[in-house]
């Protein structure tokens, strides 16, 4: 029995008499989800609703010579067949650039391709019909004549003079480039006793959300309003973009996000086919629904990673790291994705590499190039898995070179816990981290010494097991520094409105969204604690731009730390409002009163004075009995945005314990550990489960997941039979430990926890595989995913 009882831990400064902070409170929306009573966008049906399917380019790069829609239009159930040129009269194109990524460039992207398709899967024509099946039938009858163009697929040669330029107006295939130099890397390498150099490769993979992208757009000409039901992480951002590109005012657009079947960063971007569905609704004056099928998901959901990093580390014989150097190259498809751009991941790789360590000598270059493959953009833990695997891979290779234990070399180089505030080699600022405490916690939790002894014993019997570590830092609670300063209308602040109803229950409206991570539970915990009611009396409403405070939504691990703080402050503000009314009713000074478990009490003695139901009854129905001049204000709104630090960095360390079958190259994961410090833990169970889910997503990247393209830009494995995802049988149990270093930027002190698992797991698995194989003389594996064939090649059992 591993179900943890909901016992409150020791009191903290945040604890009020009925505090829920730090408790494993179950999420309020789970009963509905377990009963099949959720409402995902794919479940939404509206009167007169039509369905759209798309004809998609079969070429990676081709001129569209002609589109003949005559036969398709005559097919049963067909309402409209619309080409890119026709739709461009309804919706304007967009360009995915931000001003703070200096020099980033991209080309205008249309909702449906006009004249030219730039990747296999780009929509070239839309068919709207009474059912999805009829729309698909008619898609087969749309005759598109293509003139194939040379496809640019290899990022390594994308910048060569001989390579065609995908967007001639841009001059070359370079999207974005950043160089950074800090300290004295040349001196650092010169002083090193050993220099290790290698190339890390991170295969393209994708999110494979269980519910595919889905949207229902409903333009109502009577109201002159557009209502969009969308599984998005950022409803207000989408409201702005729909308005902007359809020529509407923002107040004419309402975005509704109910249950979402998985996001992970996949559903925080602008997708051409979703924009097309919205434009088609405007064009046809009726609701239009688009739900991607699994093939469409694989060729149009953003892909992620696809980085090649040449990397170098210098180290002294005493373990001191003397210098870092990286050269990152990433291919992002034909367009920088709107509005967050496809330059952010490479930028993050430069920002984060070497981040946990004291060595200041750092040279980095990152180049982002266009290619004729599906677009690439931000996915869970953006840049972190790459920077972490590169950094931690280098540290392990350096340790092996000088013959030092991998935990020992980390102890000697991690930023000391008493050195804060400080900065990383890229200039990123750390308020307070706990690398050494986290490492010590991990060491004890996994019984490292015992595990090493077991490894040695088994090695003698021909069983090859490995231990791999990956320390990490994670960007959470982003301020306006992430997107706002670059000109994107993506809110970094978030708000919460709290309302006492007429029976003493509380409604919370918040700008963050729920995608399953538990944001609504966290908001309820914050409000119940700050205001003073049993959590069952709190109802949370998110995901509706008409009624929630303007906010950013849920991404970059911001819902708990930012949305939670706004909710906490709103709960406190409502408590003061309510106590002012209570004071007047009870003829007491408000500051002598408190609200506990839904009852107004004497703060000093806890004696019950007045139920909130009675207070609300008087305030709403008999305000005439209140003294003159007393107006009850039973609604309070508060907003919060981090100001003191651009980001609330978290930290932690993971370890992987696995076995490699040297005959088959198969890897069996035996156990995984993660110690994480995300500041104040609002709900320990939800934090643990974010870590576990994130770790498994990272394991997928390390061992299985790869979008395989051929040289012509054709995706070879765009289905769930050929693209492997982690399933239950292959996954290990994951033990999670917590160290708590609150941020002083908010009263709650909570940082984010959504991406730490994914950030560290690939590096830990990589290091564990190499630890298992090192005594066998294998070439270190640095090319993810580590499939059995690569492992056998590294062992020399297959020709390389």
């Amino acid at each position, binding site marked *: 029995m591993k179900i943890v009882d909901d016992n409150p831990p020791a009191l903290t400064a945040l604890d009020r008499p009925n505090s829920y902070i730090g408790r494993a409170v179950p999420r309020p929306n789970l009963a509905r989800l377990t009963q099949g009573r*959720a409402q995902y966008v794919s479940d939404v049906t509206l009167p007169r609703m039509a369905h759209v399917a798309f004809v998609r380019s079969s070429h990676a790069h081709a001129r569209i010579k002609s589109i003949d829609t005559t036969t398709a239009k005559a097919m049963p159930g067909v309402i409209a067949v619309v080409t890119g040129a026709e739709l461009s009269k309804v919706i304007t194109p967009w360009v995915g650039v931000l001003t703070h990524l200096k020099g980033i460039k991209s080309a205008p992207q249309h909702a449906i391709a006009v004249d030219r398709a730039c990747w296999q899967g780009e929509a070239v024509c839309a068919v709207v019909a009474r059912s999805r099946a009829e729309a698909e039938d008619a898609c087969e009858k749309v005759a598109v004549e293509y003139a194939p163009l040379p496809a640019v697929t290899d990022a390594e040669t994308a910048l060569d003079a001989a390579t065609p330029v995908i967007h001639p107006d841009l001059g070359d295939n370079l999207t974005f480039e950043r160089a950074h130099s800090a300290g004295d890397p040349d001196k650092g390498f010169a002083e090193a006793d050993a220099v290790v150099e290698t190339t890390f490769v991170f295969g393209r993979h994708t999110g494979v959300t269980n519910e595919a992208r889905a949207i229902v757009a409903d333009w109502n000409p009577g109201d002159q309003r557009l209502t969009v039901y969308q599984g998005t992480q950022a409803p207000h951002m989408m409201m702005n973009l729909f308005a902007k590109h359809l020529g509407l005012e923002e107040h004419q657009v309402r975005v509704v996000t109910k249950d979402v079947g998985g996001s992970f960063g996949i559903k925080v971007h602008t997708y051409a086919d979703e924009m097309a569905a919205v434009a088609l609704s405007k064009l046809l004056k009726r609701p239009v629904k688009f739900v991607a099928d699994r093939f469409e998901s694989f060729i149009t959901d953003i892909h992620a990673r696809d980085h090649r990093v040449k990397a170098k580390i210098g180290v002294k014989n005493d373990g001191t790291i003397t210098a870092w150097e990286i050269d990152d190259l990433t291919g992002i498809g034909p367009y920088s994705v709107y509005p967050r751009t496809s330059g952010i991941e490479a930028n993050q790789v430069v920002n984060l590499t070497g981040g946990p360590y004291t060595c200041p000598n750092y040279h980095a270059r990152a180049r982002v190039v266009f290619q004729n493959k599906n677009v690439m953009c931000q996915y869970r833990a953006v840049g972190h898995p790459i920077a972490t695997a590169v950094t931690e891979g280098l540290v392990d290779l350096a340790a092996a070179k000088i013959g030092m234990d991998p935990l020992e070399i980390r102890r000697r180089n991690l930023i000391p816990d008493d050195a804060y505030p400080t900065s990383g080699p890229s200039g990123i600022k750390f308020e307070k981290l706990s690398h050494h405490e986290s490492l010590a916690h991990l060491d004890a939790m996994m019984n490292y010494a015992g595990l090493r002894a077991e490894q040695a014993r088994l090695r003698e019997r021909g069983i090859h097991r490995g231990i791999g570590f990956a320390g990490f830092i994670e960007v959470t609670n982003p301020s306006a520094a992430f997107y706002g300063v670059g000109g994107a209308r993506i809110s970094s602040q978030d708000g919460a409105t709290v309302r006492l109803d007429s029976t003493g229950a509380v409604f919370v409206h918040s700008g963050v969204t729920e995608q399953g991570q538990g944001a609504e539970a966290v908001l309820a915990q914050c409000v119940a604690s700050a205001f003073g009611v049993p959590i069952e009396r709190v109802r949370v409403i998110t995901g509706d731009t008409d009624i929630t405070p303007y906010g950013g939504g849920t991404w970059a691990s911001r819902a708990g730390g930012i949305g939670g703080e706004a909710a906490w402050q709103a709960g406190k503000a409502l408590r003061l409002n309510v106590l002012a009314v209570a004071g007047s009713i009870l003829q007491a000074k408000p500051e002598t009163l408190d609200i506990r478990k839904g009852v107004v009490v004497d703060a000093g003695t806890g004696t019950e004075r007045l139920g909130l139901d009675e207070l609300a009854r008087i305030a709403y129905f008999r305000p005439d009995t209140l003294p003159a001049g007393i107006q009850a204000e039973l609604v309070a709104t508060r907003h919060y945005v981090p100001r003191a630090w651009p980001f609330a960095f978290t930290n932690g360390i993971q370890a992987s314990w696995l076995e490699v079958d040297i005959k088959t190259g198969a890897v069996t994961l035996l156990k995984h550990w993660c110690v994480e410090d995300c500041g104040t833990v609002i709900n320990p169970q939800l934090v643990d489960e974010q870590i576990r889910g994130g770790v498994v997503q990272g394991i997928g990247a390390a061992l299985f997941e790869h979008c395989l393209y051929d040289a012509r830009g054709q995706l070879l494995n765009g289905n769930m039979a050929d693209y492997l*995802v982690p399933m239950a049988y292959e*996954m290990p149990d994951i033990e999670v430990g917590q160290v708590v270093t609150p941020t002083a930027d908010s009263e709650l002190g909570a940082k984010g926890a959504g991406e730490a698992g994914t950030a560290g797991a690939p590096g830990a698995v990589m290091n564990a595989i190499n630890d298992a194989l090192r005594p066998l003389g294998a070439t270190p594996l640095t090319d993810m995913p580590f499939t059995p064939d690569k492992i056998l090649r590294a062992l020399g059992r297959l020709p390389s």
Partner: protein
Amino acid sequence: MSERFHDIAVTVNGEEVRERIDARLSLVDFLRATLALTGTHIGCEHGLCGACTVRLDGEVVRGCLTLAVQCDGARVDTIEGVSDSGEIADLQTAFQKRNALQCGFCTPGMLLTAQELLSRGGVPSREAIRDHISGNYCRCTGYQAIVDAIEAVAQQRAGARR
């Protein structure tokens, strides 16, 4: 009419429904689109992810690989039915308590698959639980919480039988 359309009578969650359907209509589309039983989900339409798991005459099947026309005269149970009947109330409670779901999209299929395993009796090992749910894809949880919840219910039910 040609042979494309067929009249079927199916007992869905204990209620008999009679519909004229297209021969190509899958069971999951029949449930979702024709009967508005949206608790059964569509994930991959290739029989690989398990989101469309339902019971056909007591056996767990993939709703996307079964044609509705095959179900004529059969009994189909969906998440709505087993929820309303209380058959899996203990599993649902354990999933909630253990946070064995995040987005919840895989959960109806996962619960029906778990119920299939637990109906065999006994307390399966964690490895056997992992093996049994390996046809049900969950992107959110990493599976451990699901295994914990199923294991806990197996123990509860075994305890109750003693």
